[in-house]
Structure formats: C-alpha cells, structure tokens
C-alpha cells in the first residue's frame, strides 16, 4: 500500500473516530431540548458527556491537522472553498465549548438558560453542517485547474447536501439518545429509549435514501459493502434498542456512523475532492499529497501515538462508566 493511500485511510479513520465519539455528544446537546423535562435532567444529560467531550473534539483537530500535513492541497481547497460554512462551524465550536464550561459557573437563571440555548443550537448546527460539507465533498464542487474552489456559497446548498445534513443530524441525535439510555438511570433512561425508537425510524429512512443516492452517484463494490454494513447495523441498533440491550444498541449505532462515513470515503477514493467542472481537475490522493518523507514521519507518529491515545481515552470511559441520574446532581446550581 502506498503511503498516500495509507494516509487517506488514516484520515478517514480520524474522521470516523470523530463522528463516532463527538456524534453522541452532539446528539446529547440536541437532546437537552428534546428529551430533558427540566434543568436537572438537562444537567444529567450534559454530565453524561462532561468528562469526555473535550477529548472527543480532539479527534477533529487531529483529522484537520493530519489533513494539513498529509494532503495540504485538500486542506487548502476545502477550508478556503467552504469558507463561510467552516466559519460557522468554528464559531459554533467556540461557543459550544465555552457553554459547557461556563453554564454552571453562575447561579442566575438567565445565565444558565442562555448557555443551554447555546448548547442546543450549536450542537444542532455543527451536526447538520458536517453532513452538508461531506455531501458536497463526495458530490464534487467547482474546482478549477489551479485547485481553487470557484463556486459560491449557493453552490454548496443543494438537495443532496441538505439531505446529507439531515442524515448526520438525525443519526447523531439517535446515537446520542442511545448513549443517554446507556448512561442514565431512572425515568430519563426509559424516555431516552422511547425517543431513540422514534428517532431511529426517521433516521433509517433518511440514511437509506442518502446512501443509495451516494451509491448510484459514485459507488463501487466496496462502497456497496460498507453501505450494507451501515444499513444492517442501523437495523440492529434499532432492534437492540427495542430489546433493551443498550450497550449493543450503542455499539451498533456507532458502527452505523462508522460504516456510513467509510462508505463516503470509499466512494471518494482515489479522489479526495472531485471537481464538478472537469475530472482532470480532481484533487486525488496523489496530487494533493505531501512528500513521501513527511508521510513516513507521520506514519511513525500515528503508529506510536494512536494506540496510546486509544488506551487512555478508553480508560477515561471506564473510570466514568457508572450511570448517572437526577440524584447525582447537587442542587446548588
């Protein structure tokens, strides 16, 4: 396997890790309005991701940093081309991070309500926009011979990309609902399961339509296989949720996300950002890649660092493995 092919895989893995992990914490953010009945329940939800959301977000920073290093042309074209959506995502990430940390730091009702709105809206917006962005990447955008994006903001808004946005939004929210039922006790746990069932049904329809559309547009044998895994895992997640097997349900909703994004990356390969103007102007794993020396260096770094990261992040989940409920939330704020 070529180094640039390997790095395409590794970047896909980083994105998939990001969506698997931060997927459920975006979902939890959205659920603070859909599921929680009062402030204490909101806090139960927020605290299920409290110790881990920050670590989850680093998967994004690693994915973007690795893209910069391994495929500088991809990084440059994507971020300068999708300027305003990226700006909105970054702005939301800022507000969202601050909202988690600051919401509980003052007792005033208005202060807390404002930050709760912020958590909901930023989680929802980012979850939606990542879907829009990835759908556009797969579909192809107006890239010229100099690898510059020549389209406008309006070009990024189309039925396929909006559907992509809805898919990530609903899928992450479903994943979050399953996570909530896995991590809470009491009444909120039961309601999380019921909500997951309803969300899951909507999600399944959207995911199916989007993946079939993607398959007909750019698919091949491998992407079809990934699509099959995604669909089966989603059905399994729904079934496990109905059966009350929360751990299984969460693992399977995670696999759905992983397989769906794997499918998008497989559909892309060997392109990283196809041009809708002329196929000769596609950004590919070869013309967007860094030099073999840099890629080799990065490979060593990833080979050593990634297992260690997985080990201590896994340990974090184990330390905080206990379910929490309203009784664990002190009254003070």
């Amino acid at each position, binding site marked *: 396997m070529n180094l640039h092919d390997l790095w395409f895989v590794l970047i896909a893995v980083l994105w998939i890790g990001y969506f698997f992990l931060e997927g459920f914490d975006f979902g939890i953010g959205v659920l603070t309005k859909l599921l929680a009945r009062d402030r204490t329940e909101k806090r139960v939800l927020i605290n299920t991701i409290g110790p881990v959301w920050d670590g989850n977000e680093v998967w994004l920073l690693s994915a973007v940093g690795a893209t910069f290093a391994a495929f500088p042309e991809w990084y440059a074209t994507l971020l300068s081309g999708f300027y305003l959506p990226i700006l909105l995502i970054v702005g939301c990430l800022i507000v969202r*991070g601050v909202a988690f940390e600051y919401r509980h730091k003052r007792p005033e009702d208005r202060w807390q309500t404002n930050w709760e709105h912020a958590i909901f809206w930023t989680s929802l917006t980012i979850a939606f926009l990542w879907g829009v962005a990835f759908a556009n990447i797969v579909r192809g955008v107006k890239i010229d011979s*100099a690898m510059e994006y020549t389209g406008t903001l309006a070009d990024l808004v189309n039925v396929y990309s909006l559907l992509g946005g809805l898919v990530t939004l609903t899928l992450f929210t479903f994943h979050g609902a399953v996570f909530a039922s896995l991590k809470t006790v009491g009444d909120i746990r039961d309601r999380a399961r019921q909500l997951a069932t309803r969300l899951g049904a909507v999600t399944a329809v959207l995911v199916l339509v989007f993946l079939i559309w993607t398959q007909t547009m750019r698919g091949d044998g491998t992407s079809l296989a990934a699509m099959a895994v995604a669909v089966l895992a989603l059905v399994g997640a729904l079934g496990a949720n109905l059966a009350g097997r929360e751990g299984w349900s969460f693992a399977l909703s995670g696999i759905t996300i992983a397989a769906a994004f794997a499918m998008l990356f497989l559909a892309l390969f060997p392109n990283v950002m196809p041009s809708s103007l002329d196929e000769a102007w596609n950004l590919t794993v070869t013309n967007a890649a860094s030099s073999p020396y*840099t890629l080799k260096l990065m490979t060593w770094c990833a080979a050593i660092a*990634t297992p260690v990261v997985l080990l201590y992040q896994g340990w974090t989940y184990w330390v905080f493995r206990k379910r929490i409920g309203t009784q664990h939330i002190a009254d003070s704020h």
Partner: protein
Amino acid sequence: MELALAPETLARWQFGITTVYHFLFVPLTISLAALTAGLQTAWVRTEKEKYLKATKFWGKLFLINIAMGVVTGIVQEFQFGMNWSDYSRFVGDIFGAPLAFEALIAFFFESTFIGLWIFGWDKLPKKIHLACIWMVSIGTVLSAYFILAANSWMQHPVGYRINEERGRAELTDFWLVLTQNTALTQFFHTITAAFLVGGAFMVGIAAFHLARKKHIPVMRTSLRLGLITLIIAGLGTAISGDLLGKVMFKQQPMKMAAAEALWDGEAPAPFSVFAYGDVEEGHNKVAIEIPGLLSFLANDDFSSFVPGINDVNKAEQEKYGPGDYRPNIPVAYWSFRWMIGFGMASVAVGVLGLWLTRKKFLLPARLRTGEDEVPHLVLYKKPLSPRFAKWYWMLALWTMCFPLIATSWGWIFTEMGRQPWVVYGVLRTQDAVSPGVSQGEVLTSMIGFTLLYAVLAVIEVRLLVKYVKAGPPELTESDLNPPTKIGGDDKNADRPMAFSY
C-alpha cells in the same frame, strides 16, 4: 480605503487579533497547570488543608481560563486553510507535520486528562488524580513546543528543499526543524515568559486577598509561590531573551535593526532607549542611546559592527530582487521596548515583594496560625507604614497585566518584524493569502471573530473576578476523604457528584 480593506490586510488583521487573543490564555494555562499541579502535590505529600484549598482555588481559575484557550486554539488550526491557502499549499509538507504531532501527542493528552481531573475528584484515588493534572501540565508544554517549532521554521526555515515541479517547499530533515536553535531558544523564552504571566497572576490575586486580610494561610502560600515563580521566570526570560536576540541578529538582521531603529550600520553600535525617526528619510530626529550595548547584545562584545536597516535592505534587494524589505519600523521598535519594559517591570515588583515579605515579624496573637505566618507587610505597622503596604498591594494587583502586555507585544514584534516575509526569505506574505476568498468573506470572519471574542472577553473577565473575589472554597467531607478505588467507592453510589456541570 481600498488598500486598507484588501483581503491580505484583513487576513493579517484577523490573524493578529485571533493570535494575540489566543495567546492571552495560553501562557496562563501553561503556568497555572504546573502551579496547580505543584500545589496539589504539596497537599498529597503534607495533607495540609491550605494546599488543598489553594489547589481548588487556582484550579478553578485555571479551568475558566483553559476553556477559552482551547476554543480559541481551534480557530488557529482552521484559519491557515481559510485565509492563507497558498501558504498552506506551499508549506503544508513541513508546517503541517508539527501541527499534526501537536494534536496526536500533546492535545489529546491535555484534553483527556483535564476531563479526568475535573470530574475525577470522587472517582480517582488521590495519587492517580494528582497524576492527571501533571499529565495536563506536560500536555500544555508539549503543545507549546510543537507550535513554537512550527513558528520557528517560519522565522528561520531549515531542513527543507524547494520542489520546483510541485511549486512548494518539502521537508528533508524534521529533526532539524524540531531542534534548530531558533526553536529551542524560542521555546525556552516562551515557557519562561508563560511562568512570568502565571507568577504575576498569583501574586496579584493573593495581594488582593491579603490586603483585605482574608484567606490568609492560602493566600500567603500563594503569594510566596507566585513571587518566587515570578523571579525565577524573570531570570529565565531575560537569559532566554538574550539568547534569542543573538540568534535573531544572525538569522533576521532586518528584524533586529528595525527593533533598534538603527538605520545605518555602526561599530560599535549603541542601544537605543528612545528614538523618534522618519521612516521615509531613513534617519532619527531624536535619539537617546547607550553606547556599545547593541554590539554586546548582538555579538557579545562592545565594539563589533551591527548592520543597519539600510544595509540589510540593500543586501536583501541584491539577494531576492528589487523591493522593499523593511517591516513597519515604528511597530518593530516600540513593540520590542514594550515587551522588555513590561516584562522587567513585573520582575521588579516580584523582587520588591519578596524582599518586603522576607522574614516573619511579630504577629498579633489572634492572627497566629502556626506555620502560616503572615507577611508582616500586611498586618503589622513596623517597619512599614500601612499606607506603603496598601500601595504595594495595589501595585501587585496591577502587575497581573504587565507580563500579558509584554507577551502580546513580544508576539507582535516576532510576527510583524518578519514582514514582508511570511516564511523568512522564502515566501512573501502577499503570496500566501487565499486567492479564491473574497474580501467580503474575510471581512465577515474578521468582524465575526472580533465581536465573538469581545463578548467572550467580557464574560470571561467577569467570571474570573467573581471567582477571585469568592476566594478558596470551604472543604467538604468528600474533599478530605478521596475515594480509594478507581471509579469511586460503591458505598457512595447515590451521593451527588463532587463536581458536575
């Protein structure tokens, strides 16, 4: 007007605003992580409650601060691609690697263990919980190292070759990028400056409480820790600054000539204390100078030749073709002086404070707390008048801002002194911007970030003030009886969490 709003100008302003803003939180995060870890270590070793209270107090201020540091750091990683796409294409092969290393090695570390530390008070045994804050501290320092190595490469590119066919720079020796003297001295200088910021922060806040005679045991410990940090860091900053200056005199002669407003080379060259120059005509109208000092700073001897702005400009024109290779001279000149001036002022306050609190004095019986003797400056009339004491506490409080002003101007100097280059001698700033990004887009993001940052600054400062005024928390039952097993003790399964959002 059109020129003022050119995408390049706007992108530079945006980079300047977001970077200086980000760097208000970074040094405080680096130093407070280590200082909090030190205090928690003292608690684990001695079991004295004042250390635990101090850990909780400074830890809380640290968390308010790191939240902002982390989120503003995200912007940095994205804006190279957004506003500087041609830069990213040209140097991604080299510049991207330390960024990716930072995320994979340092940032994961920091972010994961900070979660464990915040929520781990009732989930982790004492020593493991302590190890978590040390991990955070190590993560922040490693993070700084990779970022500074990347920045140093822009100041002094090494270990690369130009690939004409691909039209970009390619890495040939990563080890050299990580270990070149620019990177090492800049790292040394930045880390010591970070502790200057943290030391002054601690001194200022401790002074605030001591002036009111509140929380004396905790604040006395904090004051002394802060003062000692301030002085050691001050010494380190001065030494590293001198080393970095010598490196820059060799690698970026224009930057240092501009920092001195030295128009024409001299031997021996004087150090300029104050100058009022005329950029167009290339000479100074007013100048106050210390003879020979600049030669010493540049070359370690008092009589050597130091090239001036005009000399370097001519040399660079011969080397890189026609053009103006001078940075903004007044900015370079004054930022250099503000950096040194405010840095030194904060150390002076530290030295004064340590001397004023140097020995235990007689204390009124009601204020004796055994080991926690209070600095006599606070409480006792002799030998210092209360008015002087009050004056010193006020000064100490204001000193909190000094190193922050110094570090901000330090970065402005480093980055603006390098212009018109973005990578010194290799890539001009004007060739680095995103060609496909419109003026409106850059303007939107610049205004967006500036407004968002302004609002967050108000929120942050008000929160800090609130928590500073509240002082150290009272300790609870669960604080004093940490769990003995990982995941928390089962008998407390239904007890409210020690910390929750």
